[in-house]
């Protein structure tokens, strides 16, 4: 969500012009978010992973969600303050992100409460009711709908940074 992404710095070889490089923070955002997306995709595909990976991955996603939110806390504050202004695009993103935060948090929490492998392994036996089962399924489906929207609303940033990160660049020359 922090989008001060691509910096322009002098190239490594003098006289060859300027080469644009991606800031370390942007690189972290890009790869961390990519891992989050892959992790969520795997965690949702419960039939593919099996219950063990599903549960441990879900717990890890919960922690990663917290880190993701922390990394973008500035954006949250900035956009929340700007909500009263008439600009529309960020409002939509803000609403999607809020819904996603609620859905994903409830999904992880209900998943922990109905855990059958991860928590018992740690010696914790959660008492779950049917409510948490249903909430887990409902929020998982809502999350599946919102995650791609959350990603796609930033497609231009992803494209711009991805193009810079994934294109082949010649090795640096010194001297």
């Amino acid at each position, binding site marked *: 969500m922090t989008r001060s992404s691509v910096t322009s710095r002098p190239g490594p070889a003098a006289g060859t012009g300027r080469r644009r490089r991606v800031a370390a923070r942007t690189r972290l955002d890009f790869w961390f978010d990519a891992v989050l997306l892959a992790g969520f995709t795997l965690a949702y595909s419960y*039939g593919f992973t099996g219950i063990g*990976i599903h549960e441990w991955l879900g717990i890890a996603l919960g922690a990663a969600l917290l880190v993701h939110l922390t990394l973008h*806390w500035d954006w949250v504050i900035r956009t929340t303050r700007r909500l009263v202004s008439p600009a529309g695009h960020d409002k939509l993103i803000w609403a999607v992100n809020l819904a996603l935060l609620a859905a994903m948090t409830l999904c992880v929490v209900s998943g922990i409460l109905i855990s059958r492998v991860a928590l018992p392994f740690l010696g914790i036996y959660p008492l779950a009711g049917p409510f948490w089962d249903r909430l887990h399924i409902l929020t998982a489906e809502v999350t599946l*709908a919102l995650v791609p929207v959350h990603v*796609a609303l930033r497609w231009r*940033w992803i494209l711009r940074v991805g193009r810079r990160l994934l294109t082949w660049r010649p090795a640096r020359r010194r001297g």
Partner: protein
Amino acid sequence: MRFLRHLGAAMLVVAAVVVLGLAWNHFASGTLTGTLHRSGQLKLVPGAHGVRRVPSGGALPRGIRIGGPSGGGTSGMNLGLNSMFQSVNLPYLKHTLEIEAALIAAVVLIDAGRRKLRRVKRARRIAQRPGAGGAATHAPAAGEPAARQSRGR
């Protein structure tokens, strides 16, 4: 230090959501009962002691299969890696990827279309402005740099 401050704030927000979930369970758990009962997905059998769940523990899109031979419990950690490497389970992942790809494509198309429309409108508006630097035939060229600048995030 700043990171820790932000982490604390993020944790507070997450805690608020968790409290809301707990409150939902406490005060209005009946609102969710029975809303997700669909044949072929999750068997939820209403009985005298509430709803019996078969099985529990996950988002189960279709054709439930509890990963691993033991299916969880107290006998140690079972990551269920066996099911992950069986090609028969690959359709689950494919299904998720298809849903995600379709949604991403839809949002990108809508967003790109919306941006294009806005750009055209802006160029037209600039062209119609008196003293915009020429006739309407030159309008797109005159309006384009201004539109590009304002689009930048």
